[in-house]
């Protein structure tokens, strides 16, 4: 406590001015406010204000029935929409305690890996764009089209695939599209090899990423940062390996870990993960024709009282869904914990400290933030500007009041 106060004092002495970045800023498509405290051009501290994109999805979920919620959960995030609906369905299946058919498991794994491909290509493009290297942006997004085409072939839509349903998947993958998908995967593998060279050796990228935005391993452990950001700091965590779901424990792949802890290692983790995704996809496509045609088990739509949890690895890290049913066709309580929330809130102040202001966009882009997943509620007194975060005691008090 004493040390914190000391730090606060040092900070106050050093800060020459503060600069608000956002809610509307060319750096990002989404609306978010970063309050940057500067000493000249050096960043001393960052305040993050989230909440501009809060839509109250958890509350909305409690007003809809279990089938309608599949499509609502998909719309939490525009990039990782598939993983949200799959995790939702897994959570409801855990509530009901049903097993889904083998073929449905393979198809789900396939869609998730295709989504990881397109999300990682998007990330490579965004990093290139923030660095000022528009060629990399154009190239990565051109190759992203191939993964989007594959998703359209499989699911019938490019962005919100609406592939899973409670108890299985909604449509089958016909055998005749497999050769064309394998061809596209070969092309993507060739291109990823090229990106690996570019993001490892290119002068512009080294100048803007190597040695910048350092996130030490002990801070990763302290703030339980998840996903590729943690893996880039040398922590070997991956939900797909630690608590396997779907078919991940039967398939041959490995967790990518980089030890450099800087922006470049965060980019390299994602580039190397693309190879692993392609490897998984090839195995799934090889296995599919030999499986039974059944893709869905019958499930009741009214669920008795129960509680369940589902954990998966989204392209950005660990995603948790909690559901509680009450004997009707609507959930009593839904809770979603998204990976970007932890990654942004806890890692941004650490990695931006003592960096140059001009490097801010590139460093923020390197943790692949997804602001629409992040938004939570903060209470702000508009008259005094006082902020209040809802904590455990406040919630308990609210609960007691409700019980009375």
């Amino acid at each position, binding site marked *: 406590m004493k040390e914190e106060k000391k730090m606060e004092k040092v900070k106050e002495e050093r800060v020459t001015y503060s600069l608000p970045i956002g809610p509307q800023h060319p750096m990002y498509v989404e609306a978010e406010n970063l309050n940057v405290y500067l000493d000249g051009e050096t960043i001393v501290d960052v305040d993050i204000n989230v909440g501009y994109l809060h839509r109250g999805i958890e509350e909305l979920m409690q007003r809809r*029935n279990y*089938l309608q919620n*599949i*499509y609502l959960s998909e719309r939490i995030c525009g990039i990782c929409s598939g993983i949200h609906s799959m995790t939702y369905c897994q959570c409801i299946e855990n509530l009901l305690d049903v097993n889904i058919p083998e073929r449905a498991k393979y198809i789900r794994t396939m869609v998730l890996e295709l989504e990881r491909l397109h999300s990682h290509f998007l990330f490579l493009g965004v990093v290139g764009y923030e660095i000022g*290297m528009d060629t990399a942006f154009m190239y990565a997004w051109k190759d992203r089209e191939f993964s989007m085409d594959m998703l359209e072939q499989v699911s*019938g*839509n490019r962005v919100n695939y*609406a592939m899973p349903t409670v108890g299985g998947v*909604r449509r089958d993958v016909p055998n005749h599209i497999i050769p064309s998908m394998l061809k596209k995967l070969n092309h993507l593998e060739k291109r990823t090899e090229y990106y690996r060279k570019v993001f490892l050796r290119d002068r512009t990228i080294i100048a803007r990423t190597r040695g910048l935005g350092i996130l030490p391993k002990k801070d990763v452990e302290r703030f339980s940062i998840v996903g590729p950001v943690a893996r880039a700091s040398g922590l070997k965590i991956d939900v797909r390996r630690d608590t396997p779901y779907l078919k991940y424990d039967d398939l041959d792949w490995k967790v990518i870990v980089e030890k450099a802890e800087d922006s470049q290692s965060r980019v390299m983790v994602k580039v190397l993960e693309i190879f692993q995704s392609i490897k998984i996809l090839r195995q799934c496509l090889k296995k599919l024709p030999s499986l039974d045609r059944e893709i869905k088990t019958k499930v009741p739509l009214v669920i008795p009282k129960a509680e369940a949890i589902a954990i998966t690895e989204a392209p950005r890290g660990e995603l948790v869904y909690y559901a509680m049913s009450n004997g009707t066709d609507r959930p009593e309580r839904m809770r979603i914990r998204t990976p970007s929330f932890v990654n942004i809130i806890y890692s941004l102040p650490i990695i931006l400290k003592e960096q140059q202001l001009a490097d801010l966009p590139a460093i923020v882009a390197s943790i692949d933030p997804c602001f629409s997943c992040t938004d939570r509620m903060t209470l702000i007194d508009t008259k005094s500007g006082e902020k209040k975060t809802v904590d455990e005691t406040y919630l308990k008090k609210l609960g007691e009041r409700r019980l009375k």
Partner: protein
Amino acid sequence: MRLTGEALKNVFKRPFTQKYPKVKPIIPEGLRGRVEHDKNKCIYCGMCDKYCPSGAIEVEVGRAWRYDMGRCLFCSQCEEVCKYMVRKNAITMVMDFEHAERKKSRLITIHKKPKPEK
């Protein structure tokens, strides 16, 4: 990136983009396009209304079926419900993806239950 080599390579390539309105893109089969409703097959039970996630379909039970394309998510839940729960197959998703209209009211389709022939 060695830009000179890349640039020279790309000069002799065909453009990756398509001339969209003149040249139609190749659509993979199974695309979820417009919702098509068969008014004779439909029994106006209102199950599609109950499971529509965005409220695009409204059914006056036994009388009329109303569809607002402006609210539709193209998730094909209505098709699934009609096919597997009601077993009537009155709703299908056709592979038509150009839905732009100048007026909002033209996005709305209302089908009334046809009168039985005597």
